[in-house]
């Protein structure tokens, strides 16, 4: 089944929106096992690239994703980071995990870099504590690994 990914009006001119929608689409095409997470995700995720001055909202609705320019609605998760750190989020290493499928590799180089950026407040994730399963599923869908 092909992933249903759409750009909301106005999102076509948002470079980050084009990049992330392309990345997620091609990830799902290359690695169909990620469709399981994509079909389970029902969440609104805002991403802000501070240094690039760009923001977007990903609205996942069980197998459908609409990408909006700017922040739309009330996000369950908000990720605020530099463009480099946002790219790093899609490079997070994943390791197979029983039942859960795959989890971020705690020993992975990229995850350590992201962790360091988080500690230094270069990466801020609002809503993470209340939405851990969503954050993990999002990481699996966005990561080019796993």
């Amino acid at each position, binding site marked *: 089944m092909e992933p249903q990914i759409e750009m909301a009006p106005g999102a076509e001119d948002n470079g*980050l929106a*084009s990049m992330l929608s392309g*990345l997620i689409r091609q990830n799902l095409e290359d690695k169909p096992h990620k469709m399981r997470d994509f079909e389970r995700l029902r969440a609104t995720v805002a991403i802000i690239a501070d240094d690039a001055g760009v923001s977007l909202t990903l609205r996942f609705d069980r197998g459908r994703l609409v990408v909006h320019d700017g922040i739309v609605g009330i996000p369950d998760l908000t990720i605020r980071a530099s463009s480099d750190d946002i790219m790093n989020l899609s490079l997070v290493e994943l390791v197979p995990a029983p039942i859960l499928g795959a989890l971020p590799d705690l020993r992975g180089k990229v995850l350590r870099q992201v962790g360091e950026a988080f500690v230094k407040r270069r990466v801020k994730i609002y809503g993470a504590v209340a939405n851990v399963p969503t954050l993990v599923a999002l990481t699996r869908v966005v990561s080019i690994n796993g």
Partner: protein
Amino acid sequence: MAKFPSPEWATAYKDAINQNAAYREAGKDWVHGPVAMVVKADPAIGLAEDQGFVLALHQGVCNEAEYVTGLEKANVAPFVIVGDYARWKQVVRGELEPIKGMMQGKLKLTKGHMPTIVKFVEASKQLVASSARVPTQFLDE
């Protein structure tokens, strides 16, 4: 000093890439074919048609940098990045990092596999760093 864009600049750029040890390392796993950088036509500064470069990159080495005119010739490459002259000038000067430029919509990946580009983000930075080492004469200066 080579005019940007021109065949001379392409040759100098190829040499700069191959002299960049950091690119050689970051791009050592690149086996995904040529990358085209296209400057959109801008008659006001004498660019009557789209022009650019097709970089034959393979495993950290640039085997050829071909200067091309017209988007069709660039489109033979599996990866095509397009931007206007002012943006590429910023890139060549090291003022605009290409991934950030793509996020801002200043540069567009019009063809190519986004996960591969993301995977080689460090290599793309080193390509830009290489371009900044080419003594360049810009058309609008």
